[in-house]
């Protein structure tokens, strides 16, 4: 399943540079209450994920892996607000721990993608000519290779570990960023400040990293915010195929997959992880939209 970043064309992104852009954007973002609420939710979720499992263990004495087979799957109660799973493990602890995995996979994979994509796109756009057409041809080829297949092969060759999962997802997810950044660099490199830097004898490397990339940051950030939810969905998809994180470590994807299999008998195993996942993706998308609107005044509604 390839997820498509939505609503973004490179020409939609305003390429005006300058520090006032960031200040303006920040002000605009502050006015967008929905984005604020989403951001707040994500921060709370993040805190919950980081400290929640430990907190639960100290206060209630539950962790995400201790089984109680005889207790088994029980519906939500005061003792277990989200109920327990097939092995009698507390579902709240597992959902929090799973959300931590999903969020970090999403953020890290999107970060890897943004990093590779930005540098690749900037180099390609800056040098132009043969280098550019060669590099873009490679991107075209990767676009044409069935994306999921690549991830599956990577995971089967390299084995399954969380770090590899980040890398595999990030390594195939950078194509869009590369295209967006290249498009911007193509127009930026003809502008006065680049020409000035070049006449001052700045090296190519300096121009790319000090002048070009900082000016494409706004579009990189927009692409990044839209990549995060899609990476989270990808991880869920890999878990569906049994290629994601390994038990007993949960991820939201694997929890939802378990829940979808047993929803007829234990409804809570689907509803809670599914609800958290949907809300999380909602918030990420709203925040992403908010940031995009803030960075791109033309789109202001």
């Amino acid at each position, binding site marked *: 399943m390839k997820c*498509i970043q939505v609503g973004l064309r490179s020409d939609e992104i305003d390429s005006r540079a300058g520090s006032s852009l960031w200040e303006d954007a920040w002000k605009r973002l502050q006015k967008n209450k929905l984005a604020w609420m989403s951001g707040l939710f994500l921060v709370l979720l993040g805190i919950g994920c980081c400290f929640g499992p430990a907190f639960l263990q100290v206060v209630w004495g539950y962790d995400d892996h201790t089984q109680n087979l005889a207790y088994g799957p029980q519906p939500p109660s005061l003792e277990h607000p989200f109920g327990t799973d097939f092995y009698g493990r507390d579902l709240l602890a597992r959902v929090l721990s799973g959300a931590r995995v999903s969020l970090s996979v999403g953020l890290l994979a999107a970060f890897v993608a943004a990093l590779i994509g930005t540098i690749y796109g900037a180099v390609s756009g800056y040098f132009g000519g043969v280098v550019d057409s060669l590099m873009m041809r490679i991107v075209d080829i990767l676009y044409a290779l069935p994306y999921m297949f690549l991830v599956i092969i990577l995971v089967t060759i390299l084995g399954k570990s969380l770090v590899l999962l980040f890398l595999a997802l990030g390594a195939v997810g950078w194509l869009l960023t590369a295209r967006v950044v290249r498009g911007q660099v193509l127009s930026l490199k003809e502008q006065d400040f680049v020409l000035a830097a070049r006449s001052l004898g700045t090296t190519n490397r300096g121009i790319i990293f000090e002048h070009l990339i900082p000016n494409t940051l706004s579009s990189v950030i927009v692409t990044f915010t839209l990549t995060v939810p899609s990476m989270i969905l990808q991880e869920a998809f890999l878990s569906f195929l049994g290629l994601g994180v390994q038990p007993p470590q949960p991820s939201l994807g694997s929890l939802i997959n378990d829940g979808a299999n047993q*929803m007829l008998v234990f409804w809570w195993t689907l509803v809670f992880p599914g609800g958290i996942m949907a809300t999380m993706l909602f918030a990420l998308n709203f925040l992403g939209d908010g940031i995009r609107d803030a960075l791109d005044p033309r789109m202001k509604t």
Partner: protein
Amino acid sequence: MIRLLLRRLLELVPTVLVIVVASFALVRLAPGSPFSSEKEIPAEIRQKLEAKYGFDKPLPEQFVRYLGNLLKGDLGLSTKYPQRTVNEIIANGFPVSLTLAAVALLWSLLVGITAGIIGAIRQNTVWDYTAMTAALVGISVPSFVLGPLLVLVVSLRLHMLPPAGWGDWHHVILPGLTLGTIYAGSIARLMRGGMLDVVRSDFIRTARAKGVAEWTIVWRHMFPTAILPVVSYLGPAIASMLTGSVVVEKIFNVPGIGPYFVDAAFNRDYFLVMGIVLLYAFFLLLLNLVVDVLYGFLDPRVDVS
């Protein structure tokens, strides 16, 4: 125009070649063999099996032979389904996947465009918010949740449609909806954005000032321009509908080509994996080409040649 098309088609050749090499290398790097089985196979018999498929030869020789057969249009034999050629398997499964993708596409366009237009012309009203929230729900619910839910409610409780299988139009609806919904959400957002871009442009204001009916403005003047982002999205969307059908085809037991995508890789069915990767790669490249051309026709500002 024709010359441009030809040139673009020619450009595909080296790309396809690189893809062949890359996928051949990747598939062969993966650990395991197509003839592993839980009961021991005597060594002599294993050799016979490997010789039958040419796996006993050095890799470069195998590659050259594969390339030769490929030029003749022969994709080889499947190791998992020894009575079928890869060509036969693809000929069986690909039309099924295409049908499914077509239904999903129709559904996503219908719902997405309608929701997008409603959202834009009733901007910042309950209509807008409802449509856009629905779009986000569509994007946020993974197909392996939506699919079982639809089966549960529509087939098992309401007894309206069969829960799985393939045969007549009854079987297409649920998988089509499951697959199309996520794209409907994206299309709705793109459509709304496109409409809002156009709504502020001069020619719409002029049309309004001239007293042209609102309905005509929306359909005659705004729609053709506003649909452009959707068109450019269609290429990747169709591609990912085809590859994304893995999950949906598994849930609904649709005999399309999606499940091979994963299973063939798992079974180390070398020729089948290669055949499917090539088919998809070729299809995706072609699709991008078609979208580019289509874009040129729709948007007078883009000069295709």
